[in-house]
């Protein structure tokens, strides 16, 4: 419900200012099978997860943070 995203430009800001961009995934994969996994499958595992957040109501830049999905806490320095 409440989460502060550490924005490297704006400092910690409430998550409502951001839009969620999902798990951090590779930009491409060498083969078709790898591409299928990359595009369609999500880990969605409990625990630390690197993910992308877009600071839509702030600097309008993307941030990559590590968030523990089981506790909904940002992992510092992750």
């Amino acid at each position, binding site marked *: *419900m*409440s*989460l502060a995203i550490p924005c490297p430009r704006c400092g910690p800001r*409430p998550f409502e200012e951001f*839009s969620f*961009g999902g798990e951090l995934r590779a*930009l491409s*994969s060498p083969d*078709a099978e790898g*591409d*299928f996994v*990359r*595009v*369609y499958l999500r880990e969605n595992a409990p625990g630390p997860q690197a993910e*992308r957040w*877009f600071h*839509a109501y702030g600097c*309008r*830049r*993307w941030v990559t943070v590590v968030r523990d999905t089981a506790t*909904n806490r940002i992992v510092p320095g992750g």
Partner: protein
Amino acid sequence: MGDDLRFEGTRVAVEAGDTVASALYRSGVRTFTRSLKYHRRRGPYCLTGDCPNCLVNVDGEPGVRACTTVASPGQVVRREAGWPSPDHDLLNVTDHLHPLMPVSFYSKTFIRPRSAWRWAERVIRRATGIGRLPMGRAPRLRPATTLHADVLVVGGGVAGLAAAAEAASDGRRVVVVDEGRLGEKPWDPVTIERIESLAASARAAGAEILERHTAVGLYEGPFVPVVGPDETLHVEAGRVIAATGAVEAHAVFPGNDLPGVFLARGAARLAGRHGVAPGRRAALVTTTDEGASTASVLRDAGMEVEAIEGSVVAAEGRRRVRAVVVDTVTGPRRIACDTLVLSLGWAPRDALLRMGTDDEVLGAGDVVIPGCSIEAAEESGRRAARGQTDPPVDAPIVPFASDGYVCLCEDVSLHDLERSWAEGWRSSEILKRYTTTTMGPCQGAVCGRLLASFAGARADAVATRGTRTTARPPARPLALEDLAAGVDEVIERRTSLHERHLELGGRPIHSGAWMRPSTFGDVREEIRSVRERVGLMDVGTLAKFLVAGRDAEELLDRILPTRVRGLAPGRSRYAIVLSEAGYVVDDGLIAALGDGRFFLCTTSGGAASMEAWLRDRIDRWALHAHLLDQTSELGAILVAGPTARSVLERLTEDDVSATTLPHMAHARITVAGVRCRALRVGFVGELGFELHHPRSRGPELYDALLEAGRTEGVQPFGLDALDVLRLEKGHIYLGQDTLPDDHPEKLGLSWAVDGDKEDFVGKHALERMFAIPPERKLVGLRIEGAPARGIPLSSGGRVVGRVTSAARSDAVGATVGLGWLRGNDGTFPTDLRAGDAVARVVPTPFYDPEGERLRV
């Protein structure tokens, strides 16, 4: 007599410190409300705001707790439950029928014939409930404020204030919220004095104390919504200390809900704080240390008190308590009395504490050590401030007697629970849902532990079936308008032409976040003007991006499925935007501006996601590209129709001829003194110029175009006309004609994908999907009947698709539409019906299939 409140046509005197409950009780009111289902008389019971027995209507607001509401002169108070009145309630007949009415009686009984429910519901709705909503009253628009605190203390009693004083003394920002006024609930001078001195030291140390502010829930963060008299606070706290105290234990015995039955602290408060004796003769059943002091405060108020140790077997009486039967060590005793006071232990007010999943949510005082002394509460508060807390001490349950009301809010008796258990509802969670126990205004404060104990004690229950039901917000009653605080502001975007549209008779509608005119009066005339003469449309809502930088071309070429490299300056190209999964997410126009700069113009609704997505790619590919969102700074007017050029020529000295500015070209021109980027486009299927201009110059440009086009019969047109014009050309509306998993082939847009391109976003996915025949596709339809969007398409009686767009087209002379068809191994049915009408699959565009009207 200005100090009176008005109560059902009479005046009730208000004394200093009175609550609505104490003022009414002093004036002789005993029945405050009627119970939800069985219309049993109910009167003040807890006097701490925990039970539902004193809900009244105050100044038009239903469901107000009389015991926690300050009485003030001029207040209008009335009781709502009961027909014809709370004192003489004929619906009390249901109480006598109660043995015949199991839980869910009404829905079980009136299930057949099905038509019975229609009238039964009407009767039942009137017969149940404890208040009427104030219809027609405008909601109070309440602001929401976010508040950051190092420590939030909920509850301004001894433990809470001690915690606040301790935490604030090391310089932390501390906020204390209490639902009432500090020191309002206790009645003994020692506690009140201690609260006052702790409050003074907490304030001196810098703690902020907010009275009449109720914490209604606790979410992860921790995050606590707090409802105050005029606002809702969203408190983001580093640590939350719940010092919410305890309610006195509710006991279940026949007659336990009669007026005259009091929890001891409630009776003591009435007598000690308000000087109102709850009755003349009290039986005080006690198992706690507080019993003696309760007896003395009641005696001081002039009551005769008989203190007994034992368990209550039953309370007798019809309108109020007349006698009580108590099982004592020497056997059962029957005591004549008009008041029964119960001091049988505590039920921690632990709802917030149980909602907390964080380590930073700590309990202090009675909520963890029920019935603790003032000294122990203070010590517990100070420890919590230091981050230490005690494990909650289990407070014993008062054993059940033969029957009685477990849940006062929802009128659920022990007998109801037993019967429901026999029906097979055998765990606390499922019993809760079936009987609605704990689901009333008190949210289980009184009955939650009793329900768990009931289920846990059954021999045929498994261990987990007797656990407490999950605590969820709200912990305290609140109004919907408190929940809605801060969400009343609708963001409404307007173009610079909004006022002009209104002047011209345009009917504005919501289109995404924008307000856009649907029509200016006559949709058919608007369509005809575009097809035969010239029309104007405000398209300033389109998403507009300037892409610049060394790698701008590379960025767009790597993203878009169409070739951007080699697009000559002054030319533009239609482009679809694919997700990585190959699905069409947006479409628009890409225009090369020269110097490696590009202008990207996409759909109105997709501006935010388009921007985010482009920035993601710039960032992750580490490209030297800049993105400027010009959606708000640029306006755009579409001038379309066979005579569009002659209108423009009257306003510009620049060359807008077909040779200089052909279809899909663009140029910088000056129109009526306004510098514009003119894009030759064809969404509506006629000669068209999209004039992108500085937003502030919009109205003058629009006026000039209207004036210059007068001889051509220029006509402004809106969304309704656009819908038909684009449909005649077979152009899709993303979102209306498409589904989230549509790849280009399904939409007939394969031509917009350059298969020779080495790579673009979604290429691998498309290769995978293009290898499989599409299971459905979007087709053009001619329908022999009236247009209806959303109706199913069927073939041989089987539903095979759906019409996504349809309109009567004067230009085509038929009803045309777009729709989905489901196929089988790449073959699609041809003999179709759209609803009852015959439909044929035809190629698109329906109008001007060769696009000759565009290339002029």
